[in-house]
């Protein structure tokens, strides 16, 4: 255990002694800042101060949509469910005098901030793709492996270091979006709860907890792609291949699944399961998929990626 900590220290040293790593962190903060500016100055809606009136208007529109949908054939009750839930939540807001969290508040900005994880994913994939492959391409792997340490421990320490970097990226986004959101939109309304429709009634939840959950769901995608990049990096010892393949799949995976969505087996494809938000707000790609199912599929993929990396790394004859 003590040895493991020291190995992770080593891997961290090799990540953070590189200038590139700090540029990535700087870029993430900059993107959050730009995102904040855009939503403040470009997308700023001319909202009147009377949110009650707006909600009533929205509810009227929603009711119209619902009746439209219900008159259409082939549309199940699933399609209108989110709309109806929204109506109930809006009514609750009006009754209890809880203003909605628009984008023009620190919470609103933070709720949209998990979208930045896609960019963070790119950076974490770059780190994951390089962490094993560069040791081979620079030849440092030889001096690394002639130490009294089992090979799997070295690989594990590298994966953990990558994971910690991903965590750092998420924390960077979280903190910088809080600061940027607060500075641009003010810190007022921080005591507002998050409303959720559950079991036929509206519940009040802690807003921060809700944001953490959003980050958690968005991270599933990141973790899987990072693990994938790590595997490619280990198996092919090429960081560019690992970066290229992982990014390609990161951005096209969802489309691929959409394309094949008429088949039932598509639900076993990794990318049909990485978007866990589909179970919270939205409709699953294939009917009958549940959160538990997706988590199981993700776990199986996760274990497979690791098993392949471990076996290959363990057996490899180092000729670099």
């Amino acid at each position, binding site marked *: 255990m003590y*040895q493991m900590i*020291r*190995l992770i*220290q*080593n891997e961290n*040293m*090799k990540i953070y*002694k*590189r*200038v590139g790593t700090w540029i990535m962190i700087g870029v993430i903060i900059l993107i959050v800042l730009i995102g904040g500016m855009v939503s403040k100055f470009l997308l700023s809606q001319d909202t009147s101060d009377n949110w009650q009136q707006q909600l009533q208007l929205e509810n009227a529109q929603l009711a119209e949509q619902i009746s439209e949908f219900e008159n259409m054939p082939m549309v199940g009750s699933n399609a209108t469910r989110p709309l109806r839930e929204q109506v109930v939540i809006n009514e609750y807001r009006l009754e209890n005098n809880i203003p909605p969290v628009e984008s023009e508040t620190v919470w609103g900005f933070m709720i949209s901030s998990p979208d930045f994880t896609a960019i963070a994913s790119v950076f974490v994939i770059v780190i994951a793709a390089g962490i094993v492959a560069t040791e081979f391409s*620079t*030849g*440092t792997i*030889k*001096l*690394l*492996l*002639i*130490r*009294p*340490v*089992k090979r799997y421990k070295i690989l594990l320490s590298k994966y953990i270091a990558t994971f910690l970097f991903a965590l750092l990226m998420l924390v960077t986004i979280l903190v910088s979006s809080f600061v940027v959101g607060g500075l641009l939109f003010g810190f007022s309304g921080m005591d507002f709860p998050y409303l959720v429709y559950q079991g036929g009634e509206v519940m009040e939840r802690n807003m921060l907890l809700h944001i953490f959950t959003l980050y958690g769901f968005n991270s599933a995608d990141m973790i899987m792609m990072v693990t994938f990049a790590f595997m490619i990096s280990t198996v092919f010892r090429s960081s560019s291949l690992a970066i290229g393949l992982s990014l390609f799949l990161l951005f096209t995976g969802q489309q691929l699944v959409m394309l094949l969505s008429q088949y039932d087996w598509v639900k076993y494809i990794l990318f049909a399961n990485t978007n866990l938000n589909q179970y919270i707000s939205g409709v699953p790609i294939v009917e009958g998929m549940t959160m538990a199912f997706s988590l199981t599929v993700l776990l199986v993929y996760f274990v497979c990626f690791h098993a392949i990396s471990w076996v290959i790394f363990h*057996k490899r*004859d*180092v*000729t670099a």
Partner: protein
Amino acid sequence: MEKRTPKRSEKNLVLQIRDLKKTIGRTTIIHGISLDLYAGEVFGFLGPNGAGKTTTIRMMVGLMSITEGEVIINGHSVRKNFEKAIANIGGIIENPEMYKFMSGYDNLIHYARMVPVIPKGRIDEIVQLVGLKDRIHEKVKTYSLGMRQRLGLAQALLHSPTLLILDEPTNGLDPAGIREIRMYLRKIAAEENIAVFVSSHLLSEMQLMCDRIGIIHHGKLVSVDKVNNLVDKNQQMLVEFKVAPLEKALLFFRENYPNVQATIKGHSLVITTKEEKITQYTKLFVNHDFTITGISGEQKTLEDKFLEITGGELHVSNDSAHSE
């Protein structure tokens, strides 16, 4: 790792290689190498490029899997008990590739974290030893090749190994750098009683650096001998006698010394022999009215022997292997 006493008995067996084989696919690259190495000696592992030096070394340090046979270091098998065996080894495999974006000191900390316990001050001590004190906090990318080589030595010696394995340590170094490495190796072998295993394809260098030399060719260890023996055995030289009449001299010589090799080359009679015989042969020619206009000798070097062995033409007896 147990604490080593500074001076151990001279005949301390450090490395045993037993019938080591490597097969990749259907090709056998290493055909059963056996070798013993003792504390305090510098062993030269010599062979032309592609003879299997690097493969053998990589199997010794666990970078490549062993197809058959054993590598035992201080009683621990590399195959069965990798961590214990490798804890006794320090090495540079080919070029001393370090993390260039980090300082030399950070690199040493990196490797120090990978071994159980390194006494406080050991890093500074080793930096002092290899003479990098002034530059150790600078990034490795600013180092010259010679400095990188010294940093490589520092990481190899950091955990006080009993066996130092260096694969082509003088590659790319200038003569001064080569000399420096040679001095270091001789010094640490003598002072710290470390067994040093050095591979090279440069014979002249090995001759100066090593106590014993093993010659590997086509994946076989064809000869293991002390450097002195190798050189002594080869006191044979080619002596050119400018003698007339030439043909008659050859026949006459063969009559008298049927077991000595003699041929005609150009306008001279070339005899393969030893230094002390020259007078005897000259006397023979002079006494029988041959005219001698010149005698010149050319000593056969270790290099000739090396080429002879690796040329594969001559059968070199293997009984000199394991000799100590």
